[in-house]
C-alpha cells in the first residue's frame, strides 16, 4: 500500500497521544498487571504460609519490618504476598466477564440496534429486566444455587453485566445506522450483514473500549463484594474481597488487615476509571489529526 498522507510523524503523534495521560493511574494498573502476570514470582512468602509468632505484625511504615512490607494477618500470613496472588483471581474474573458478558452484550446491542423491530424490543426488555434487578442479590442468588467457584462467579457477573453493554452499544448503533455512509453503503448494494460487520461494528469499537475500561472497576468491586459475602471465590485462594471480609474482625487490633485489601480494591478501581475517562477523550476520532 501507499503510505497515508499524515500531517505529523509517527513519534510526534505518539507523544501527542500520551500528553496528559494519567501517569499515576497507569502506573498502578501496570503494577496490578505485573502482579497478575508474575504472581508467585513477586511474592516474598508463600501466601498461605502461617506464622503464628508474627501474627498481626504491622506494615513496614508503621514500625514493622520490610520482611513483611504490608504487615501480616491474624495467622501471621504476609499480606503483601496475599494481595499479589489475589490480584490474579480478580483479573481472571475481570477478563472472563468482559470477554463473555461484555462482548456478548455488545453483540446483542449491535443486533438489537441494527435489526430493530421485535428483535430489538425483545432484547431490550430482557436488558431492562436485568438492570431492574438488584445486582448483588441476583449474583448471590446465582452463585448460591450453582455453588461458589470462579467459573460460576463469572457466569453470574456476565448475566448481570451484558445488559449494560447491550444498552450502551445499541444507543450508538441507532446513531450510526442513520448516518449517510450506512445509507450509501446500502445504496451501493452492500448486504445488511456486511454493513453491520464492516460499517457499524468498527464504529462502536471506541465506545466499547471505553465502556470496558470503566466497567473493570465495577467488576472488581462486585467480585470483592461477593467474596466478602462468601458467595465469591472460595478459600483458601486469596481474593481481595474475602480478605477484607475476614479481616474486619481485627479492625481494633490490626486495622491494616482489612485496610490493605480495601485500599488495593479502591486504588485499582479508581485507576481503571481514570484511565477509562482519559481513553474516552483520546479515542474521539476528531482528535486523531485531520488535514490541518
Amino acid at each position, binding site marked *: 500500500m501507499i503510505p497515508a498522507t499524515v500531517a505529523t510523524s509517527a513519534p510526534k503523534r505518539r507523544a501527542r497521544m500520551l500528553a496528559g495521560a494519567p501517569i499515576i493511574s497507569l502506573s498502578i494498573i501496570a503494577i496490578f498487571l505485573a502482579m497478575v502476570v508474575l504472581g508467585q514470582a513477586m511474592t516474598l512468602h508463600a501466601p498461605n504460609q502461617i506464622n503464628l509468632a508474627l501474627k498481626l505484625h504491622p506494615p513496614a511504615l508503621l514500625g514493622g519490618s520490610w520482611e513483611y512490607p504490608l504487615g501480616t494477618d491474624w495467622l501471621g500470613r504476609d499480606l503483601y504476598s496475599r494481595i499479589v496472588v489475589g490480584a490474579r483471581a480478580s483479573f481472571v474474573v475481570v477478563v472472563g466477564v468482559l470477554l463473555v458478558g461484555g462482548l456478548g452484550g455488545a453483540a446483542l446491542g449491535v443486533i438489537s440496534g441494527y435489526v430493530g423491530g421485535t428483535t430489538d424490543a425483545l432484547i431490550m426488555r430482557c436488558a431492562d429486566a436485568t438492570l431492574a434487578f438488584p445486582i448483588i442479590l441476583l449474583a448471590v442468588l446465582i452463585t448460591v444455587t450453582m455453588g461458589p467457584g470462579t467459573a460460576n462467579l463469572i457466569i453470574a457477573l456476565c448475566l448481570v453485566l451484558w445488559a449494560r453493554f447491550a444498552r450502551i452499544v445499541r444507543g450508538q448503533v441507532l446513531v450510526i445506522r442513520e448516518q449517510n*455512509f450506512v445509507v450509501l453503503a*446500502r445504496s451501493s448494494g452492500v448486504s445488511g450483514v456486511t454493513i453491520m460487520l464492516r460499517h457499524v461494528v468498527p464504529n462502536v469499537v471506541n465506545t466499547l473500549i471505553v465502556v470496558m475500561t470503566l466497567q473493570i472497576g465495577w467488576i472488581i468491586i462486585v467480585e470483592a463484594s461477593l467474596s466478602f459475602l462468601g458467595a465469591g471465590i472460595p478459600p483458601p485462594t486469596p481474593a481481595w474481597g474475602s480478605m477484607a471480609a475476614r479481616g474486619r474482625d481485627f479492625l481494633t487490633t490490626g486495622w491494616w488487615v482489612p485496610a490493605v485489601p480495601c485500599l488495593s480494591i479502591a486504588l485499582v478501581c479508581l485507576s481503571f476509571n481514570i484511565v477509562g475517562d482519559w481513553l474516552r477523550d483520546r479515542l474521539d476520532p476528531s482528535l486523531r489529526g*485531520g488535514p490541518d
Partner: protein
Amino acid sequence: MAGDEILRVEDLHVTFSGRGGDVHAVNGVNLTVRRGEILGIVGESGSGKSVTSAAIMGVLPPAPACRVHGKVLFEGVDLLSSSERAMQSIRGRQISMILQDPLSALNPVMKTGDQIAEVFRIHHGLSGRSLMDAVINALKRVRFPSPERGAASWPHQLSGGMRQRVVGAIALGCEPDLLIADEATTALDSTIQLQYLDLIKERQRIDGLSVVVITHDFGVVARICDRVAVMYAGKVVEEAPVETLFSGPRHPYTKALLNAVPKLNTDLSRLEAIEGVPPRLWSPPVGCSFAPRCAGSVVECTTRPPVPVAIGDHHSVACWRVAS
C-alpha cells in the same frame, strides 16, 4: 432527448406513521426518466424529493414505520416488489445514489480506497491487484487529484469536495445506468459545485448515463438538466423541458418559485417570497395542496385535487386554472 424509458415511477405514495398520525410524504408521484436524460426534481424542503429518491433506491425504513404504494419500474421491472437480494445486485451496479452531506457520507473508520473497493468486490468480484486498479481508475474518472494517495487516506483527511468525489467514485464505479444525485452539490462551494456538475454531465455524454438530479437550486437545473419536475407537498405539479419551464412556467407555484430566485438584470430591493407555509403533510388539504397559498385559487381548487394535463410539448401542469 428522445429514447426509451429507463425509469418510470407510477402513482408513488409514501406514508410514514408518526406519533401525531400518518405523514403523507409522497402523494401519487408520476415520473419518467428516458435513457441518457438528466431529469431535475426541484421543490422546497419537505416536498418529498428525497423520499421519492429513497423509494426508488428501496432504502426507506421498513414497514410498518413507512408504507410505500405504487410502482417503480426500472427497465420494466418493478423495484418495489423485488426481493432485497435482487435489489442488492441492482443497487450500486445499475442504480446508484449520491447524497447531500459529504462529511457523513464516508465511514470514518475505513480508508477511502477500501470503501470504493467494496462495490467492485460485491458487483465484479474483483480482488488483489485488479481491485486496486479499479479503485484508482474510479478515482481518476471523477478527476480525483493523486488517486493513489486518495485511496490510502482516511475520510477525515479529505476536504468536503474531495469526499464528494470519493462518493462519486463509489456511485459511478460500476458504471450504473441510472444515478440519483440527491442534493449532491448543495454542500459544496460554487466552483467545486460546477466541476462536480460537469463531471456528471460528462458521464451522461460519454456513457449515456441517466440521471435524476434532486435540488432546490435552479442554477443546477439550468446547468445540467434536460427536463424538470417541480414537486410540492409530495406531488409533481409541473413537468417540462428546462427551456420551456424557465421561459413559460404555468403552475402558480413554479412561477412563484422562479420569482423567488434573484436575477442579475433586474434591480429588486426585496426578493419575492411565497406567502404562507407549505401544507402539513399529516393532514393534506382536500383539493390542490397549493391552493391556500395561491393568489388565484378558484372554488374548484379547494374541493378536488387537480390532475396533470398536457399543455404542450412534454409540458404538463396540475392546476385547475391552467386546465380550464
